[in-house]
């Protein structure tokens, strides 16, 4: 299953969530591929330093991620599109009405930690982790083919 995680700038929440989702899926032996993109990104911008640090604490390296815009190709690639804010889901649905059935909103408003201290990024990372665990549970295994844990 391909999952596209979407936020606004694609420098904090969505790359963190995509990194977490890959790790969680891997640990559960689930075949989930995750990517991230933004609805209004500065294209090519590096992921926020504190986002990379907070993720590195879990052994997840997102430091090389560069911000990308949500494109029709990415939307076609995705089986599910996950947002971290209801506003993103609403906006996405207006831009890609044909893909609304793919939409899942993790939570109406995961706070944007942009430019905040590391502690704030850790907090958001932990919120995202909980939400993504629930998201994976909600899939019920019916849509994901299992693979042997690596």
């Amino acid at each position: 299953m391909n999952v596209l995680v979407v936020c606004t700038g694609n420098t904090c929440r969505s790359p963190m969530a995509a990194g977490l989702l890959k790790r969680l899926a891997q640990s559960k032996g689930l075949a989930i591929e995750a990517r991230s993109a933004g609805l209004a990104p500065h294209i090519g911008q590096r992921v926020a330093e504190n986002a990379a640090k907070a993720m590195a604490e879990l052994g997840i390296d997102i430091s090389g991620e560069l911000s990308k815009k949500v494109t029709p190709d990415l939307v076609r690639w995705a089986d599910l599109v996950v947002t971290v804010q209801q506003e993103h889901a609403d906006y996405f649905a207006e831009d890609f009405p044909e893909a609304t059935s793919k939409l899942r909103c993790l939570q109406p408003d995961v706070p944007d930690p942009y430019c905040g201290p590391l502690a704030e990024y850790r907090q958001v990372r932990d919120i995202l982790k909980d939400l993504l665990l629930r998201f994976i549970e909600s899939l019920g295994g019916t849509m994901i083919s299992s693979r042997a844990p690596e």
Partner: protein
Amino acid sequence: MLNAEERRRWRREYVDGFLAQLRLQRDALAPSTQKCLDQWARQVKLVADQPSSNFGNVVLELCKAVESELASGLGTIRGLEFLARGTLGEKAHALKGITAFDDATTQRISSQGIKPDFVKSGLADSLKQLASLRSDTGSAHGNAQLQSASPQHADRARLLTGQILKGIVRVSRGKSK
């Protein structure tokens, strides 16, 4: 959390608030300009309180609104057709090149309720400044997204767009407050 109707209402109120500051009413603008401003409000809603966002599309929609209003207003006046085509920078350049309007052109501008003095003096500078906020994508009426823009760029674009619209909106098409 807003449904589609509430989102439309939010955008409408946001645009009306902007126009009220300019003492303009919505129906004074060309329908295409109203659509551009609706899209502007949509972009504003997306990036509001999201400092990591690229405000490029906010600026772009304002540029499109100005282009639209010029094309449907001043650009229809004989002698000012160049305002209906080309980039904002090209329009500014062409306008700067005019040393004086002849009497007939002045009369045609005035008859639309537009001040010729603004068209002759302030408009070219405002257009030039707005053009400089817009990373030129090489597209005359570019649908392409801007490279990168900050909230400050968006605020500046809003101010310039307000000045321009206030100066060029055809009073005869609607009522000024």
